[in-house]
Every structure is written in C-alpha cells, then in structure tokens.
C-alpha cells in the first residue's frame, strides 16, 4: 500500500470510488447523504457536465455555496438552473426515462441488491422502524443504473432484506422484469467502506474490488451469505492527492460529511 492510500479514510475511499463511476454528461438522480458528496466530487473533477437532480424538484447549476447537508438543504435554492416540483424531477426526468444513474444510500442491502430503509423485523410489528422510501424506491425502480453507497457493517448486508423499500434484482434471474420493472434498469454497483460490488448475469452481487487496506476474506466475512468473488477481483485504486484535496478542502471544507454529522449525533444541545 502506498502513502496516499494510508492518508485516505475508508469513507473517503468510498466517496472517491463512487464518484469515479459517474460519467461526464450523464443525468443523475441524487439521494440524500453519501450520493450528494460523491456527485459533487465527480462534478468538480472529471464530470463537470453532469446534471444533478434532487427529488424535491431541483436541478443544480453549480457546486453549491456550502455542501447541502441533505437534498432539501435551502442552499440548493440559489444554486439551481431549475427549481420546481417533485414531478419535474422524479416524474419527468426519472419516470420519463431520462435519468442515466440514480445514487442512493441505504440502511441495508441484500444479495440481489434490494435495499431496505423501512423496518427491521416484521413490517406490521417491527423491531425497529426506519424512515421509509422517499424517492429511493423510485430511483431503484426507474433509473438506468443505480449506485448504492453504504458504510460497511455486517448487519447491513443480510442475505434477504426484511422489507424491499427499493427493488434491486428481487429474487434474481428475470424476477425484476417479471414484476413489471423496465428492462435496462436496476442496480449497477454497491460501493462500501470495504469494497465495490457489481451484479452478475443472475442479478447477484459479486465482489469486484476491495479497499486497499481490506482483503477479499474480510469482505466475505462481512456479508451474511456466501459472497461471489469476481475472478479479476483487485484492490481499489486509492484516492489521488488531487481527489483528496478537492474532497476535503473544496467540497466539504467544514467537514459536514467527513466529521461533523457523526459528532452531532447524541450530543446535548441547549436552546
């Protein structure tokens, strides 16, 4: 491992790896949390001509004056080329088949790329209740390629999710198209703090690259099924100095994603 790799955190590697998957000129539906920072990084580097669309009805025109803390952040208002209704973006862009890529965070992801952000346990009497879909189900249903960005934790990778908030390849093979979802849509990659996964011909997640400081074994031990590994599996290319510098000092200089969000949670604040 070289020095650069050592200097990047696992979260930074995840963000950079996801950003590299974004092609210049593409139209993106961008969800809250990691997708925001990954898409802005791509726009600052190799993909200046991407259209970043948010579910509330916004199309960004530039890198916002401060990093949006989530896609409804009011900073978005004065940094858009179009600001309207959810039906403008989720409707006419996404349902209209104009979104090349959808980027999502997730609470958990299963073997076939199905995402759960709804509940742990039974839906009717859940052990834990999570936020629900928002636009996530729509991204996963309709975008040409969905990229899922998630911090790796074994609990987040069950063999089968308790609730399919966002459809991936359902139970594999042709089950996605049989359910009525358009062909040429569905999950493209999952990017985590341990590695990167793509999907094979039956729609099953397959490890294609691992974090430079992780190993194939470590990744396999951190999902709850017998994970397929691509024959060409290799370490991810560590972030370059330029990627790290732009990420840390231009995209998130206040450390909102890289530091503060975590610090805020659980902290006592008086008003």
């Amino acid at each position, binding site marked *: 491992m070289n020095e650069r790799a050592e200097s990047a955190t696992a979260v930074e590697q995840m963000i950079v790896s996801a950003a590299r998957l974004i092609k210049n000129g593409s139209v993106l539906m961008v969800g809250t949390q990691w997708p925001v920072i990954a898409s802005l990084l791509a726009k600052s580097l190799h993909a200046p001509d991407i259209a970043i669309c948010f579910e509330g009805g916004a199309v960004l025109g530039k890198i916002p004056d401060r990093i949006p803390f989530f896609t409804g952040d009011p900073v978005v208002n004065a940094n858009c080329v179009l600001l309207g209704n959810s039906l403008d973006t989720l409707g006419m862009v996404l349902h209209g088949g104009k979104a090349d890529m959808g980027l999502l965070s997730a609470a958990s992801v299963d073997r076939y790329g199905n995402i759960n952000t709804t509940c742990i346990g039974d839906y009717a009497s859940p052990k834990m*209740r999570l936020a629900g879909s928002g636009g*996530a189900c729509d991204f996963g249903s309709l975008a040409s390629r969905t990229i899922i960005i998630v911090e790796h934790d074994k609990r987040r990778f069950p063999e089968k999710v308790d609730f399919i908030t966002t459809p991936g390849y359902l139970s594999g093979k042709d089950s996605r198209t049989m359910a009525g979802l358009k062909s040429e849509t569905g999950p493209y990659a999952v990017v985590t703090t341990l590695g990167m996964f793509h999907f094979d011909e039956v729609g099953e997640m397959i490890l294609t690259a691992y974090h430079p400081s992780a190993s194939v074994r470590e990744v396999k031990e951190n999902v709850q099924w017998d994970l397929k590994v691509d024959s060409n599996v290799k370490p991810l290319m560590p972030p370059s100095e330029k990627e790290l510098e732009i990420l840390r000092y231009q995209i998130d200089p206040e450390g909102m994603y890289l530091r503060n969000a975590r610090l805020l949670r659980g902290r006592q604040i008086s008003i």
Partner: protein
Amino acid sequence: MSEKKKLMSMSDAIEQHVSNGDVLFLGGFVQQEPFAAAHEIIRQGKRDLTLSKCAGMNLVDQMIGAGVIKHLITSFTWNPLPTTAHCFVRALTQEIPHKVEVEEYSLLGLNLAYFAGSLDLPYVATKTMLGSGFDWEQNDTGAKNRLRFEKSPFTGERICLVPPIKHDVGIIQVQRSDPHGNAQAWGMLGESRYGLQSCQKIIICAEEIVDTDTVMRDPNRTLVPAFRVHAVVDEPWGSHPHPMAGYYDMDWLYFAYYERETHTEELFQGFLKKWVYGVRDRKEYLSVLGAKRLESLRPETFTSEPVSYGKHTRHFEV
C-alpha cells in the same frame, strides 16, 4: 364566504377549518413546512386526524407524539440530521401514545396520488414501486396501501395503479399571500402544488401579507389562487425550525436538540410543554427562541433581476 373574513388568526383558522377526524394535507417539502399551524392543531387537541404528508419530519413526529394522528399517509419520516424520529418509532413499535395506521408509498407514488386527486382522475398508471414491498401482490409484507396491480390494456405489461388521494383540508406556509389567499411560494416545491389542489379547503400561512398588485406583477409564482382558499394567516417564521427560501435558514442545531429532547416519551412531554403547550401562539414561541437566534438564521440577500410580463393596452389599428 366574505373575502374580508379570510385574514384571521391561526387559532381561528384552525378552530374554524380543521375538525376531528379530518383528512389533512400538510404541504412543504423540507422548506415551507407549516409548523405554526401544526402546533396550533396540537394545542387545540384535535383528534383522529388522517395526516397526509410526503416529507414526514419533525412536524409529523410531533403530531404523532402529541396523539392527534390516527392514520398517517407518507413516503418517509425522519429527523433530518439524519437520525431517528423518535415519536414515529415509538408509535409504530410500541403504540405510544397510541396505535397509528401507516399507509406508505414511494415519494413519486404519493406525488402521483396527489396529482390524480387534484385533477379528479380515477387513477394514474405507473412503472414505479413494482416488485417492492409496496407491491403487496408480489410481496406478502403486510404493507397496507391502496395500490392496484394490473396488466396494461395497451401493452400487456404489468403496471401499478395509484389511486387519487384527496383531503378535507390543506395547510402550507408560504412566502407571501394577498389578504384573499392568492398565495405565492418559491424554493423547492416538492408535492405542494398538487397536494394543495387535492384539498376541499385550504389554509394559507404567510411570512408576509402583500397587496394583490404585487401578486399580479409575478403570477408565475402563484401556488394557489384565492378562490380555492378559505383562510389566510399572517404568520412570520411559521416554518421554523425548517427553512423558508429568502427568509431563513434551516435551524440545524435545533434538530440535534430535538433528537435529544425527544428520545424518551417523558422528555418529549417536556418538549411539548416548553414549545407547544407552554406558549399561546407563534409570537410567544419566537420569544422563547430569542431574537438573536432568529437573526442568526437570516440569509444574505440574493435577488433575481425583475422580469417584465409586458403590459398591453390596445389591439391593432384597422
């Protein structure tokens, strides 16, 4: 209805237009959230409401915790740090303060339901939500919703039919309105346009009351015309702790504060006492927040160039 009587206090607007058991739409997608109205609904002890709101955040969480909601129609509910909305979770996992029925859709699904409601369409056919947990025909999850799944009469492919969702009353906080209810909003509008138009009655809460001439100089910005509106409330800062484009920022630390102050039922009761039951109206709420905090939320001004719609006074010479 007399035009003069539309401009009224928040307590009168809620008392006269929101009844127990109503199906209530609350507009605002992160921005333009009608917090002042929601607090008044809680203070007046309304009961058995069906609350319909795409973006369920602290506002939905508080109404559930306060026990005014019986049935929730939503696409997500969280505390946008992002972290857990504790009252929502307590209601769904432990039935505290009581059982809440949840009817969930994806965000696009719910937008389409409002769209169908506003145009009085029998349904809208879509390709989203198929195969997901909302698709009860494919997944026996126990999720309750009003979706139907059919074959397209045109192509034979499997499609999802979204029902029209209509409401008794709709409320939103906007930037400005004239006294009659010609209401103008800008910023990220989410589902508000179609959500409001699917309501029988509409209450407009505005940061500022302006004259009709101001509205008529920029009619593209109008969200709802006066003939659809039943009450207008002059309520500055009505969306706090959520933002209002051009008026105030999100009060970020308030969400962290809310998370801590509501993580047990007992703490939540203390929160309600301080911020809802302990104040008479929005003015008193703002005095608890303090002028300094409010001032810190004001953004720098960032105005657009005026546009001309063109004034035409004559046709042509014959």
